[in-house]
């Protein structure tokens, strides 16, 4: 699984040079709701709830935690 992940990442980086937009085509990406961290508070709340109820955590960022709830 890990090997596959690294392989996929290499492929992605190779392909990156041809993928993307010019600076003047960033109109849509510049909209606040297109930011990947649109709602940091929502994300933190969700992470905290799922951390305390499920065996998995993190992924989006660092593993969450810092709580005696699990």
């Amino acid at each position, binding site marked *: 699984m890990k090997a596959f992940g690294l392989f996929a*990442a290499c492929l992605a980086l190779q392909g990156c040079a041809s993928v993307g*937009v010019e600076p003047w085509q960033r109109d*849509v990406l510049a909209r606040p709701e297109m930011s*990947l961290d649109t709602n940091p508070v*929502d994300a933190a709340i969700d992470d905290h709830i799922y951390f305390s*109820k499920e065996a998995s955590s993190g992924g989006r960022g*660092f593993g969450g935690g810092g*709580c005696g709830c699990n």
Partner: protein
Amino acid sequence: MSDDNNVSATLAAATCALLGASAAAPVMAEEAERWSFDTALLYYGESDDRVQDVSATIGAQRAFEDERLLNLTLTADTLTGASASGAIATDTPQTFTSPSGRAVYTTPAGKAPLDDTFLDTRFALNVGWSQPLARLYTLSAGLGFSTEYDYTHLGANVSLARDFNKRNTTVTAGLAYSEDDIDPVGGAPLPLSQMLDVGDQSNKRTSDSKDVIDVLLGVTQVLSRNTLLRVNYSYSQSSGYLNDPYKILSVVDGVTGDAILRTPAPGVLGPTGVYLYEGRPDSRAKHSLYAEMKHAFGAPVLYGSYRFMTDDWGIDSNTTEVRLRWPVGDTSYVEPQLRYYMQSQADFYHPSLVQGAALPAYASADFRLGEFDAVTLGLKFGHRTMGGNEWSARVEYYQQSGTIDRDQLIGNQFAREQVPDLKAVIAQFGYRFGL
């Protein structure tokens, strides 16, 4: 032109000659508000009087020159209610010693035992800083601290991002370390030691600790004018005391599956069955692969994410989440949210332990280490005010449905519901504003 003071005047005159006098009004511009706040009030409530949580979060962000950014987040929450202890339901009432070791509580016949002494107030503070380092690099660092009556967390993280390909690609690498101290009510029980009578603390240590190292590697890629993809690989290594000090397992008869009865010592209160405190391995390594995508279909924005996690406890999980942000009128939006989660059970998950059989090296009956699916259905509504602030309301319904492998059930246990569904309602109100 050596006299810079004349630049503005000369330029103004030249512009006036070019455009005419019509545009001659002084500029009114300033940088956007420097402090912005993101606040939320949250209610989380499980059905059947289980865990209830009320929390308040204030996030503050201060932008400085040159894209330097300070983030502060303060959270306070209060948990009340009971959570499943891990002991099985039986046809007779069961009595347990409470975690403090100073009292007992009784669970009625046929009910899943809950530890109802659960009450906790938690404060958490996170501080983050991010700034460009060289032209294409961004450095971020953070510190986190949280405290509960039985738990203290201290963490630090640092990450470096580099942009490539006209800033269409960002590669991030990060490292986090945390050290947590656990000081449970009544002490931390020795793993797989038996629950003792009131007053007998011989199997408890005062406190314990664990540390966690996280490594994160990520790539963010602009796929098109309206599509953005992020892929993260993360590795997390925990070591130390990884038990939940309040979780126990029932010891049962190998044929009937019923709890083995026990009589407390004369004149003292104590458990009426044989219960062992759980014992998890003292290390855990997790690998996660996470991908998320945002795509704008005109005004609506679709978000999708998928996470695969696997660890050396034998747990694999798959998580999928989809949200669709749909504008309503010019200043509002609705956002339906759907999340599906499924995990396999840990190698050492046992709903109960059989009397007389060899004691496994590790065992836990914590439902969170068992096999289950979870669905979250949610709806968020947001509205931007005339002043440019935004309030939002979000309601979610969360349901877990556990499955116990039939090989792990014994005798009468088949007839009883061992893992009741966990149902919870989440309501959140948020307000964002700038100063």
